[in-house]
Structure formats: structure tokens, C-alpha cells
């Protein structure tokens, strides 16, 4: 009679988990692969079959898409997107880390008040402040530039990241700070030398989130940017949506 040892049972679990993950992974990723393969298919084929491999490869969609509409090519929009996304990401993470540290590790007058205010800001629907903000940036003369995105990032206006950093800092034992204080660190050194290395996962997540959100944000650029020359990719896609709606394969490509 075969005796199943604990080790064997363990590896059996692993095989089952592995297979489950693989199956579910296919379901998760199928829509994206479908999108990718559709960009190579002929229009009629896109909705005809489930297959991911096109019967006949069509390569034109990409070169046609890259050329863009009108006078601006796709490279312009890529450059625009990076000019917008990179500063926003960097500034958001730096400012959120510093502010989050302040909230997580210090007590100061009105702390509860400011924290409540920050949380309230988190819940504030964007639509509440978008109209007055627009008028404000108009007064500053910042419309049609990337300043309405970059300057708020510099001042930690995205409470999501502050709250996230606070929660992670709170998970780190205070004894570490105390030990560092005894070793002669000032509070800023505690942040940079002790806490930052410990919350690398949180910082990378924050960077990733901000990058993705700024990249795919559609609503805000639509409001603040009004010349095609300065459009980021997300707006550019909407242009295509309107112009070449009939040509699915080009459209699907552009969306990637």
C-alpha cells in the first residue's frame, strides 16, 4: 500500500494550484490576446472566430495607425504621454512618502484634523471640484499645458498614496525608529535609511499605480488639454474612435 508522505502531499497541492493558476490565467489573459490578434486579422474575421491565430495576417494596421491622423504622428503622442506621466509619477511618490511619514510617525497639533481632512479628500468625488479647478487653472494660465497635472502631484493632492504609505509605515515596528534615534539619526535619516528600504514594495506599488493611472487617464486630459499637438495617448485613442470607427483592426491596434 502506498503511503503518501507529507512531502508528496505538499507537492501534489502545488501541482493542483499550478494547474488552477494556469487555467484561470488563460481566462484572464484571453481578452488581451484577442485584442492583439484582432489587430492582425482582417475586419471580417475579427468576430467570426475564437481563434487567436489569424487566417491571414494583416500588417498594415500598425503602420497606418502609427502615421496617425492629420499632421501629428504617433511618436508625438508617445512623447507627450511621457512628458506628462513621468513627472507626475515621480513627484507623487516623493510627496506622498514624505507626507505619509509625517502622519504615521509624528504627533503634532491638529493631526487628527488634518488626517480627517485627507481622508475626506479621498472620498471627494472628482466631479465636485473639477469645474472650480478648471476655472482656477484658467486664471493661472495653465490650461493646455501639463502643469495642471504636475503641480498638484508635487503637493501630494492624491490622498490615495498618502493613506497607502501611512498604512505601510504603520506596519513597521516603531522600535526600529527608536533604535536609529539612539544611534544618532535625525528624523529625516530615519525615513531615508530605515523606513524607505523596508517599504520598497509599497513604493514600487505606488509608482506603478500612479504611472498606470496617469497613462490611461482620459477624463482629466480631455478637460485641460485642448490642442491636438499636446494630446497624450489616451485622448488620441478617442480621436481614432471617432474617425476610423468602421475599421476595427486599426482601432483595436491603436487601443493597445
Amino acid at each position: 500500500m502506498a503511503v503518501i508522505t507529507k512531502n508528496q502531499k505538499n507537492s501534489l497541492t502545488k501541482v493542483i494550484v499550478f494547474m488552477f493558476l494556469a487555467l484561470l490565467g488563460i481566462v484572464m489573459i484571453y481578452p488581451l490576446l484577442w485584442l492583439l490578434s484582432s489587430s492582425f486579422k482582417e475586419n471580417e474575421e475579427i468576430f467570426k472566430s475564437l481563434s487567436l491565430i489569424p487566417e491571414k495576417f494583416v500588417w498594415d494596421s500598425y503602420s497606418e495607425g502609427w502615421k496617425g491622423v492629420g499632421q501629428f504622428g504617433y511618436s508625438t503622442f508617445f512623447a507627450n504621454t511621457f512628458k506628462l506621466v513621468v513627472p507626475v509619477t515621480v513627484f507623487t511618490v516623493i510627496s506622498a512618502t514624505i507626507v505619509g511619514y509625517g502622519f504615521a510617525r509624528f504627533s503634532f497639533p491638529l493631526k487628527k484634523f488634518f488626517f480627517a481632512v485627507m481622508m475626506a479628500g479621498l472620498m471627494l468625488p472628482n466631479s465636485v471640484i473639477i469645474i472650480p479647478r478648471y476655472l482656477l487653472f484658467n486664471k493661472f494660465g495653465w490650461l493646455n499645458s501639463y502643469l495642471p497635472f504636475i503641480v498638484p502631484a508635487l503637493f501630494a493632492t492624491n490622498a490615495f498614496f498618502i493613506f497607502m504609505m501611512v498604512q505601510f509605515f504603520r506596519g513597521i515596528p516603531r522600535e526600529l525608529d527608536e533604535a536609529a534615534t539612539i544611534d544618532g539619526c535625525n528624523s529625516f535619516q530615519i525615513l531615508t535609511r530605515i523606513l524607505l528600504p523596508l517599504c520598497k514594495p509599497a513604493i514600487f506599488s505606488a509608482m506603478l499605480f500612479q504611472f498606470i493611472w496617469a497613462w490611461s487617464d482620459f477624463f482629466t486630459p480631455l478637460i485641460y488639454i485642448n490642442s491636438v499637438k499636446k494630446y497624450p495617448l489616451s485622448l488620441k485613442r478617442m480621436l481614432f474612435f471617432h474617425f476610423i470607427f468602421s475599421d476595427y483592426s486599426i482601432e483595436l491596434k491603436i487601443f493597445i
Partner: protein
Amino acid sequence: MKLKHQRKRFKDYEGLLYISPFIIGFLVFQLYPFIASIVYSFTNFTMIKKPSFIGIENYIYMFTKDREFWGSLVVTFKYVLMAVPMKLIFALFIAMLLNMKLKSINFFRTVYYLPSILGGSVAVAVMWRFLFMQDGVVNKFLGIFSIPPIGWLGNPDISLYTIGLLAVWQFGSSMVLFLAGLKQIPENLYEASAIDGASKIKQFFVITLPMITPILLFNMVMQTIGAFQEFTGAFVITNGGPMKSTYLYGMMLYNNAFVNFKMGYASAQSWILFIIIIIVTIILLKSSKRWAYYEDGGDF
């Protein structure tokens, strides 16, 4: 003695120094627009003509005459109650699987995170519409098992779930946070409990779940707030239909503000949404005192 006193005073204000960027940003980019928005909500501001003060007329109209308002409120609550729990359970479940030491686990993490990288973009929403169309890929697939085509987008009873499913599919951001939280749980807790004879299921409820409650709370709050404001999905996939079954609050706001240009009325509606979100969040945060566990003892 005096020096010590001064040092203590500096320590009192050191924290303020760290949060000063937030204070400035808050005053200029949040408080000012916020107050301006209250003022607008009591006017009939329409972008074209000069606003005039009309008191609480906007609010009275909203609650007593605007059927659209109540309809979309019901739809929005349904959406939140469905999408948020589904997303969180799914995200935690996958995060735990991805936290195991398996071969090519990094590959899986990438695969599962990929849908979320695209975020709430127009692209994904359009793709979703193509996938779930009457003669779209999903119905084709079901056809293989001779399941008749389902009106994913056309049937008012189902359409909201189709949009919720898009939210669940993009569970990556919650999942990444859960994963980061799971990694912070000290291994020795599991070892100790295993020696004491705890089963895997017991370990989950006694160690894993309590240890990640701060992250769970964070995810729950964020996802709830986000779900109340959901816009892109409903806008691009179904445009609120059929029969207003997916006419979420965010869509109503958008229509009133940027289609009908009733800025004053839209401001008033956005205020009601804000108050609802505040109440729900306070309930979540208050209740968390009973179930969330903090390494620093919870004093804050």
C-alpha cells in the same frame, strides 16, 4: 532644562513640516474648489449665462421631482454591493495563491496583473463591449457548449453584472496590495501554529486574515469609493442602457454637467454623492475598530 524644552517644542512641530506639502496642496487644489462648488450648487450656473443664487431649489428638485436621480442611486448601490465584495474576495484569493512558492510564480503574477495595467481606460471598455456583444467572442465560446447566447449588454437584468465583471477582471491593484501585505507576515507565526497543530484553514482565519486587515480595510475603502464614482465602464460599454439599467451616478453627473451644461445642478448632485460616500466610509472605518489589527497597537 531650557534646551530640552526647546527640543521638545521642535519635535511637536516636526510632523507639521513633513505634511506641509499636503497642507498647501489641500488649501489650493481642494479646499478652494470645494467651497466654490458648494456655492455653485446653490445657483443655476450653466456655463453660458451668469449664475444667480437660487437657494436650495436644486436639492428640492433632486429629491422630489427627479426620477432619474433615484433610479441611478439604486443602480449605483447595486453596483457597489456587487462589484466590491467580488473584487476583494477574488483579489485576496489570487494573492494567496500567488504568494506560494511555485515554479514560474513571477510569470503568473505578471499575467494576473496585466489586465489591471490597462486601468480604467477607454481601450479596455471598448474591448469589453466587443467581447460581450450579442455575436461577440464570449457568446461564441458559450456556443461551443451549446449554451444559447446571453444578452450580456442587451438584457437589463444582466448588463450591470457585465460591467461589474470588468471591475473584477481588473482586480490587480487590490491583489498587489494584498500580496505585499501577505509578504510582511512573519513566517514564524505559521511555523509556530503548525507545531501547535493548526490546519491550513485555521491558519488562514487566525493568522493570515487578522494580519492583513489593515490592507483589507484600505482596499475596501478605496474600492468602495471608486465604485461609487464608476464612469468609464458604463459610459463606453452600455452608455447607461438598456433601460437605464447601468445608468450609474457618475454617468448622470457627467450628463448633467457636460451634456446638459447644468453645472449648478450637477454640483448639487455631486454633493449628495459625496455625502453618501462619507457616510459609507465612516461606517467602514468605525466598524474596522472591531476587526482590524495593527502592529503598532492601533494608537494613532
